[in-house]
């Protein structure tokens, strides 16, 4: 056995299956979110009354109203930090679990809407990073929504929140379609990866009061933006590996 080194180096190196990869990522996002939540609510040193008063003042100034409501205030815009600050206050003011879920729903759709606007404006590399960040923020919000809905014990509310989330998810899928189209046209694999990840998070969302749907994989296959479309020009060997992995 003279070529033992060669033989050992030929031992196959497998890749984590996409579904498992998604599940792990989702758990990690969820954990990161919960951690952020704990940190965000650790403002015992501050006087909550002052925070609230400042928040109300900030929200009702004219510039703030514009920053908060305008679709043109996107990452990179000078007013964007103000928009985010108001949203943080909005999240803190939403005290009940139901209000929080509604806020997360709104904000996650908004992040994707911003990503669509960014993608339509011929983004430079910085803005491309912002598109990715916004999709990541959406996934994190999505994890928060699921986590909070599953912790509720009011069945009537749960049902209406699930319906609201599903309705919102349809909107988000439309946004993701648009971002996915931009990524395909511009052969941006990183964004395409993020888009597919976000779509998977949406299509895998399971609530405690719903039965597991066994057709997940089929749905995903239909939903997924085909990576092959942008890999058409690549070598047959790489394509074969890609197919094997999927």
């Amino acid at each position, binding site marked *: *056995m003279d070529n*033992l*080194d060669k*033989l*050992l*180096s*030929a*031992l*196959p*190196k*497998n*890749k*984590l*299956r996409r579904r*498992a*990869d998604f*599940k*792990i*990522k989702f*758990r*990690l996002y969820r*954990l*990161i979110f919960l*951690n*952020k939540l704990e940190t965000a609510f650790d403002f015992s040193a501050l006087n909550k009354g002052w925070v609230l008063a400042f928040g109300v003042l900030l929200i009702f100034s004219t510039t703030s109203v514009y920053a908060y409501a305008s679709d043109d205030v996107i990452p990179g815009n000078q007013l964007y930090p103000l928009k985010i600050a108001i949203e943080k206050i909005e999240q803190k003011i939403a005290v009940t679990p139901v209000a929080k879920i509604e806020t997360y729903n709104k904000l996650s759709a908004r992040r994707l809407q911003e990503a669509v606007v960014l993608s339509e404006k011929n983004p430079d590399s910085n803005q491309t990073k912002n598109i990715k960040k916004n999709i990541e923020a959406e996934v994190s919000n999505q994890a928060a929504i699921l986590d909070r809905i599953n912790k509720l014990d009011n069945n009537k509310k749960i049902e209406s929140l699930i319906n609201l989330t599903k309705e919102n998810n349809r909107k988000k899928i439309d946004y993701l379609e648009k971002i996915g189209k931009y990524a395909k046209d511009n052969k941006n694999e990183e964004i395409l990866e993020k888009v597919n990840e976000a779509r998977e998070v949406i299509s895998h969302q399971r609530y405690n009061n719903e039965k597991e749907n066994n057709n997940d994989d089929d749905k995903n296959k239909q939903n997924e933006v085909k990576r092959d479309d942008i890999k058409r020009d690549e070598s047959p060997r790489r394509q074969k590996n890609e197919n*094997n992995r999927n």
Partner: protein
Amino acid sequence: MKKSKDSFLPYYNQFKDKIYNYFLYRVGFDKSLAEDLTSEVFIKALKSFIDFDESKKFQSWIYMIAHNHLVNHYKADNKIIPLEIVEDFLKYIDNSAEEKLELERVLKIIDSMEDSDSEIIRFKFIDELSNQEIADLLNKEEGTVRTQISRSLNKLREILNNNSK
């Protein structure tokens, strides 16, 4: 400055397949089990990411967690690694039938070797760690690791030669 857990995700993307392979080759090629263990390891790592010293190598740190997790996994149920599914695992590999048979034979022999020999061969050829990385992981000198790899490969070579006669 406090380390943000967000910075953990790029590490996950970089090492997910390596850690998955680490488990796959050590749990009898049971894909689902390897995936579960990979998931548990990264969650454990994320929880203690705050303690990770970024001046050190993430790879050594995550392998250490994976190794301890695997030891606990086997300790918990006193499990024995089954060998029958090696054929199944190799079924999906591109190599020729002859190469597959050879790989199957090698894998079975590696699994039957003493733990210290099989582990160091796996670290070197499956996990593709450098001698220094293995040394860090096993808390040994690089020279000792080099000698041990050479000795373990000689043992493997000898068994393979004897088997082919």
